[in-house]
């Protein structure tokens, strides 16, 4: 357990109760403004909904085992995949890393006592819960069958709980905005003394870039969703061709948010990977600035390309060309990151702890996920592949395969810091392997399904596609087995006593300077930065948490 310990942190004599214990009681958790507790509550909420969304996913896969009806009818199926998509995007993956790990780790990494607006932070959690409750309540209204994209005029004319679901997503948007506002203000104003922009851990750069998108894109989603509500309630006409409106305009509105939103999903994942790889390679990150700037570049470029989801949706040729052209530029910062991470491992001292195993899975899966984006960004191939399982597979590779695996990497990385306990390392390695294999078994066949012409959102399909669907379904069970195993050993870790050293992995960023778990105010006094975040040279000035005279 203490293998990786380089230095046992600042060995303070005074013992403070950690943030988990002090103050006690459920009420104290529900009213806490401590970023760490809020982060944990977010994390467990997200995991809960991940389980729910995952169960829906398993039902989808089960249904697709046979070409005709297997376990549910078409209407149920449509509701199931809509809920799966909506839960996974709005309730799981968008808050997953920023709101859960980000809340927990960002102030620690910055050497701050909390985020800039702790109460706004708590509000964001409650808003999230409200939105989640609303989304779940749609089930009582007969569910929603629009797909997570809510395309008009279907969404304005179908029955069921669309209005409530749309409002739920609207409310969830606020929780995302609150997190974003908080993080930007925190990064600007609460860095530890001595921490310039380029002494910040890359995680913070990733969070910053994410927050930019959250702030700039989410409001447009908000108004788009309100317009759907207005269309349904008042018949305002903006998206209804019968009333002089334009249904394709809705798609512009929707993707103006939802394309950048995919970078809300991937940038935090990249942020986690940028922490994990140097720590377990025991080597400074390769090309710090390139990685930092590429995060911001991805965030900003991400705003210019949204209509690549609409190449066959009746856009003009000119627009198609522009959007395709711009899309390709996002590949460049992504490539820089991938190769810089690999270069970081080069000549390092690589320790294959669980977080590192997940990070390596991330690298491999993201390479496939990202490069298959190029098929879709290219005009002529997208015409063939649009709305087929190829797209489904592409986005699972980047969302489930990259983001959630990075979430797992981050959870395994900071678990000792969160709880002061360690999980069973052997089980961790096994389940990482299961997840990697299961994931690829589930989604590789879907690429082939897609390129052979199997459309998505299909309840029935032609028998010629069955073999690959069966393979995919079996893969989903392997994947589920891996995830359930992960959940099991993580929960089992609570049976051990707390006893982690402050710095089990030998990391060099500030969170490892405080106790595991940290006290309520994170650090004894104000830490002052004395070396860069990834400085593994034996010589540099002693790391320091120093009392800063007020």
């Amino acid at each position, binding site marked *: 357990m203490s293998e990786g310990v380089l230095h046992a942190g600042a060995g303070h004599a005074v013992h403070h109760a950690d943030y988990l214990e002090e103050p006690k009681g459920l009420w104290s958790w529900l009213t806490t403004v401590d970023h760490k507790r809020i982060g944990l509550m977010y994390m467990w909420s997200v995991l809960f909904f991940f389980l729910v969304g995952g169960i829906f996913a398993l039902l989808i896969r089960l249904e697709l085992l046979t070409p005709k009806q297997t376990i549910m009818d078409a209407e149920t199926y449509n509701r199931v995949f809509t809920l799966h998509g909506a839960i996974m995007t709005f309730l799981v993956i968008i808050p997953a890393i920023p709101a859960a790990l980000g809340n927990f780790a960002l102030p620690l990494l910055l050497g701050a006592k909390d985020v800039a607006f702790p109460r706004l932070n708590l509000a964001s959690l409650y808003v999230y819960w409200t939105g989640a409750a609303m989304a779940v309540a749609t089930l009582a209204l007969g569910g929603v069958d629009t797909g997570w994209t809510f395309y008009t005029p279907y969404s304005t004319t179908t029955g069921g709980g669309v209005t409530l679901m749309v409002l739920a997503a609207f409310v969830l948007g606020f929780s995302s905005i609150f997190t974003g506002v908080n993080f930007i203000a925190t990064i600007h104003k609460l860095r530890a003394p001595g921490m310039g922009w380029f002494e910040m851990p890359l995680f913070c750069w990733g969070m910053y870039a994410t927050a930019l998108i959250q702030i700039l894109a989410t409001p447009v989603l908000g108004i788009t969703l309100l317009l759907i509500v207005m269309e349904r309630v008042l018949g305002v006409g903006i998206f209804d061709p019968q009333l002089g409106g334009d249904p394709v305009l809705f798609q512009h509105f929707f993707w103006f948010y939802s394309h950048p939103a995919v970078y809300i999903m991937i940038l935090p994942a990249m942020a986690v990977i940028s922490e994990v790889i140097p720590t377990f390679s025991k080597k*400074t990150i390769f*090309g710090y600035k390139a990685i930092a700037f590429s995060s911001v570049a991805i965030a900003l470029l991400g705003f210019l390309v949204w209509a690549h989801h609409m190449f066959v949706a009746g856009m003009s040729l000119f627009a198609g060309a522009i959007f*395709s052209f711009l899309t390709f530029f996002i590949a460049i910062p992504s490539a820089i990151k991938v190769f810089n991470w690999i270069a970081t491992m080069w*000549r390092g001292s690589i320790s294959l702890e669980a977080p590192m195993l997940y990070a390596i899975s991330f690298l491999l899966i993201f390479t496939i996920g990202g*490069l298959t984006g190029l098929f879709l960004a290219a*005009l002529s191939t997208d*015409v063939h592949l649009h*709305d087929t399982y190829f797209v489904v597979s592409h986005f699972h590779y980047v969302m489930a395969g990259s983001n959630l695996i990075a979430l797992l990497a981050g959870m395994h990385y900071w678990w000792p810091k969160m709880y002061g306990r360690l999980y069973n390392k052997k089980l961790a390695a096994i389940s990482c392997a299961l997840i990697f294999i299961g994931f690829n078994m589930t989604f590789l066949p879907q690429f082939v399904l897609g390129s052979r012409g199997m459309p998505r959102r299909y309840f029935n399909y032609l028998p010629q596609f069955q073999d690959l669907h069966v393979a995919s379904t079996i893969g989903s069970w392997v994947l589920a087995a891996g995830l359930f195993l992960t959940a099991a050993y993580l929960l089992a870790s609570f049976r051990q006593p707390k006893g982690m050293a402050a710095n089990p992995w030998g990391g060099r960023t500030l969170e490892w300077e405080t106790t595991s778990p940290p006290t309520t105010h994170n650090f004894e006094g104000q830490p002052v930065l004395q070396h860069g975040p990834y400085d593994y040279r034996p010589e540099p000035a002693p790391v320091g948490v120093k009392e800063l005279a007020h």
Partner: protein
Amino acid sequence: MNWFRDFLLPRGASTHVGEMDGLFMFITWLTVFFFFFNGALILYAVRRWRRRSNKEVTPHITHDTRLELVWSLIPLAVVMLIFLWGFKGYVKAWVVPNDAMEIIATGKKWVWEFEYPDGTRTLNDLHVPVNRPVKLVLTSEDVIHSFYIPEFRLKRDAIPGRYTELWFTATEPGIAQVYCTEYCGKGHSDMLARIFVDTPEQYETFLREGDEQVQKMPLKDLGRLVWENKGCATCHSLDGTRGQGPSWKGIWNQRHRGADGKEHLVDADYIRQSILMPQAMVVQGYEPIMPTYQGLLREREILGLIEFIKELQ
């Protein structure tokens, strides 16, 4: 490596196939290459520099601008190539030749209706002559649908209140499957159609008399075929389960109550009327959503349906 392409892609049967397949395979190989390339680098690094003791010291390499430029500029060149390649194919698929024959395709929940230049109309079966450019003008009556022919590598949305177009020259006689690829509700996955690529003679006959099949088949079988192919199946079941419309099982010779409260005997005239003027008598408990099939079914097909329903006891 043709087997690999044939494994990944369906048969190619239009003039757009070449552009698309070439680019598709190019990116496929690119992806395969980078997956194994990155995998190999990682594997190598992990084996060579695996941590053996906690005291290991690693070199302090902060960056290398030249290397980083290399792995930004090479991808840049590659993606620009991909863009141009994709753009070329797209423009080709976009610009309709002047001599293309025009067919209007209308999507509605959950059938495709085709109207030929001479006024012939068909449902879900599209006949086109081989080696002639055909332009489809697409529109929709309700929500967005999308017309997708994998074997032609083509797809375009059909949007209510607007027209979009799509063109192709089919290069091989045979049947190509059409899917609806824009989610449109319950029947989305059953909103299938087929394109019959005919030789010129076959096409002539089709315009004159309907498909050959239709001519020769026993009436009862023809009825079943119509049920399958002309969209009846999306709403009417044969086994008694209630769909959008009433099941046909055992309705022959029953008395059915209409929304107006009157009773009607289900006989040949009644069925004919239900098909041609569905709104004239709406069965109680159902929405008046059945489209009229006036002009869409040939006389023999209607007779076939009547025979077919008769048999469904």
